[in-house]
């Protein structure tokens, strides 16, 4: 399929000025000249996303204003077999938004209206370019709560969140984005517009396309409107932190908390390197001598929150926490969570580039995964700092390396291949919440097996026979 795409690209040919002019004129008729860019130098920012080492050469970036324009762009692209890569804020950590086969980058950031928030149906209808935080705030103003909060929530768009089924810091109690997607409007690869689901809590008519399109990474359709579920805002929330000798001890404490019948909203871990990097940026007074840190928190009624935090703290002490603190003020609580969200970029302070992964295992096996990661790092002589969602069994081992050192880079890549292997062996996944993208695509078949991979390809072909939607990802 990718060969077909490559050939069609030559037909439109990004190279010759003539064809570029023709492309420009045609696309400009759809979105307006102001919302189209074809100059190679101005396209440089759209070649990459937040993933290290992946880039593509887009032919153009278009910024449509509405569903109709998206449909017209897709009709145009389908007729010419030009790839179309939907893009929100470009914060993918799996090269999901990188136009690796060129084509048109469809930037959906102009479609950034919150269309409605309904306090009775507990739903929000939004355009895909709304930022996660913008919805969370708007919901909050009406006493409502949109729980998914990926690390990049201030930046990331809801369209991207749904397309990758993004997780967040509150996944343990609230789950990933998928749990909140009730309906979508989507433009298919040939420009047809469909609606699936809606403001319904129960709806079993037809195959569950809402669930299928969630996490489809822009390979099946372009999401142009989302109906999302909200919850009543919790009355109270609180956060605490505990220090441990190492990650294994922290993992053991997590098991203890869950075994005690407690399900905190947040249960996050950072290893010693992450603690140092975060402290270096945020100056929170974290204990730099600790081997690992657990950040825990809950929300709900004040009594409930107090009980969860008290029991969690007690279990942590029992399981050998060196010290346990509770954030007394809301601002302190928020600062701790914000600092945790910055763990990845802050790690770049340790030595230039970062390559991060997103493996997940059943919660009970997280300590084992963490131990395996440490062994793998040692074996390949690379620095891997690990943080993640302890309660979800989702770890973000992050390779820190000098980008100019080819050998180091290759060793990090080799180490991650082993980490994927370890995760799969432990009954886990190569990606918990970031998506497969182009970065993990070569490893997908190892997890799914040949038969399922073939089915994934057939699903892709059913939606997008010409293979123009975000080629090189998932079913390709």
């Amino acid at each position: 399929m990718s060969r077909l795409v490559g050939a069609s690209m030559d037909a439109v040919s990004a190279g010759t000025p003539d064809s570029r002019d023709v492309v420009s004129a045609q696309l400009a008729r759809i979105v307006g000249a102001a919302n189209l860019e074809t100059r190679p130098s101005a396209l440089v920012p759209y070649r990459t996303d937040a993933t290290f080492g992946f880039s593509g050469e887009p032919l153009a970036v278009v910024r449509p204003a509405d569903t109709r324009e998206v449909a017209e762009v897709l009709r145009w692209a389908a007729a010419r077999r030009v790839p179309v890569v939907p893009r929100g804020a470009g914060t993918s950590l799996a090269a999901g938004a990188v136009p690796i086969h060129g084509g048109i980058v469809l930037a959906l950031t102009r479609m950034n209206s919150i269309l409605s928030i309904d306090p009775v149906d507990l739903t929000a209808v939004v355009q895909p370019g709304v930022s996660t935080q913008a919805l969370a705030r708007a919901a909050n103003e009406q006493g409502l709560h949109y729980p998914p909060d990926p690390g990049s929530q201030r930046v990331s768009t809801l369209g991207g969140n749904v397309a990758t089924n993004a997780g967040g810091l509150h996944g343990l109690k609230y789950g990933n984005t998928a749990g909140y997607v009730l309906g979508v409007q989507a433009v298919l690869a040939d420009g047809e517009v469909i609606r699936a689901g809606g403001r319904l809590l129960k709806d079993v008519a037809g195959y569950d396309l809402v669930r299928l399109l969630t996490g489809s990474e822009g390979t099946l359709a372009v999401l142009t409107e989302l109906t999302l579920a909200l919850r009543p805002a919790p009355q109270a929330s609180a956060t605490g932190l505990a220090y441990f000798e190492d990650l294994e001890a922290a993992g053991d404490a997590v098991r203890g908390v869950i075994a005690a019948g407690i399900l905190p909203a947040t249960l996050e871990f950072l290893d010693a390197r992450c603690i140092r990097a975060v402290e270096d940026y945020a100056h929170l007074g974290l204990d730099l001598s600790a081997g690992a840190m657990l950040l825990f928190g809950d929300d709900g009624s004040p009594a409930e929150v107090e009980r969860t935090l008290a029991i969690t703290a007690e279990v942590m002490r029992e399981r050998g926490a060196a010290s346990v603190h509770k954030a007394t003020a809301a601002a302190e609580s928020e600062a701790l969570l914000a600092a945790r969200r910055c763990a990845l970029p802050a790690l770049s302070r340790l030595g230039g580039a970062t390559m991060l992964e997103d493996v997940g295992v059943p919660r009970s096996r997280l300590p084992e995964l963490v131990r395996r990661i440490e062994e793998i790092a040692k074996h390949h002589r690379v620095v891997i700092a690990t943080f993640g969602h302890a309660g979800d069994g989702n770890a973000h081992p992050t390779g820190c390396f000098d980008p100019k050192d080819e050998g180091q880079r290759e060793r990090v890549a080799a180490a991650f291949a082993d980490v994927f292997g370890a995760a799969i062996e432990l009954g886990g996944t190569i990606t918990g919440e970031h998506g497969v993208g182009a970065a993990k695509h070569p490893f997908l078949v190892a997890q799914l097996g040949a038969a399922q991979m073939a089915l994934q390809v057939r699903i892709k072909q059913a939606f997008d026979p010409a293979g123009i939607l975000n080629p090189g990802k998932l079913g390709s």
Partner: protein
Amino acid sequence: MTAQGIFDPAALGTCISCGFCLPTCPTYQLTGDEAAWPRGRIALMRAIDDGEVDVFDAAAREQGSFCLGCRACEPVCPAGVPYGKLIEQLRVAQWTGRRRPWRIIPLMWFAGSRRLIRMVGRIRRHARTTAASPEHSGDMLMLGCFERALFPAVSRAAVATVPGLTVPRDQGCCGALHAHNGDLARGEELARRLAERPGRIVSTAGGCAAHLAAVVGREKVVDYSEALIERASLPGPILIDGRPARIGLQDSCHLRNGMGVTAAPRTVLAALGDYVEVPGAGECCGAAGTYAILRPTESRQVLAEKITTLTALDLDFLVVVNPGCQRQLISAVRRAHLRTRVVHLAELVAMAENGTVRP
């Protein structure tokens, strides 16, 4: 010109493209274009550095001048990218010789001439060292070049309210204007010369302070608000018709993002009246040094939302801590026919001490 050597490689290498800077960037808010925010501009700088894009390429030149240089992206950057330095370095390459925007050439020439700024300052009656200063602190008050010409009352108010400041008569420009407009070498030279004198430099201009601090060290530079809190007891509230004045603040971007000063001016204002936090106080007003002169259209677009906010707030005073913001907001408030008075922090403190407030 060869591409290599324009940018500090360590600074350029620090960005890991996480995108956390996006929501703070005013030019991204205006356009929604990824080329028009720090991560996109850094991608472009890297392409220039690789020799792939010419530094004088039209899109590269556009981004070099479109950026406000407000540095709002810096405090939110977990990786610690010194973006302000990178944009200065880009402008050094792009605004050399004849390519320097003609509108700012006379300004740089004016600020670069010690004799000229002294003369203008004297005509406009900026502050002088008072012979009666009982305890001399060793700190000098820096006279901003444009502040001397446009707002000489600010330095007079600063000297009147912070005891023990000296005002050297022969001081030159701090070089911020040069550094921000493509002459980093001259900008650094001027800053070093100003800092030769022993003691600290007290500044009433956020733009100057941040530049000085970047060249000669943060410990050498003090903002007026910090000096005031250190040295003087704050005056009581300003009353208007028997009620405390409603006062808001517009942060100076460089004071906030470059110097990290946000609390001190607010502490002072809380004593002076009924302090109201202006939503978006930390976001650029569009003055951005010479930006208002070079890109008046965009400057006003950035300003527009602020005016809507200020109209709704109906303040008695909007306080500024940088002459560029003062000029921008005075004319904006006038255009919008608001009753709000735009004054520098030092001027308001002086008013409170003298009791000379007229509503």
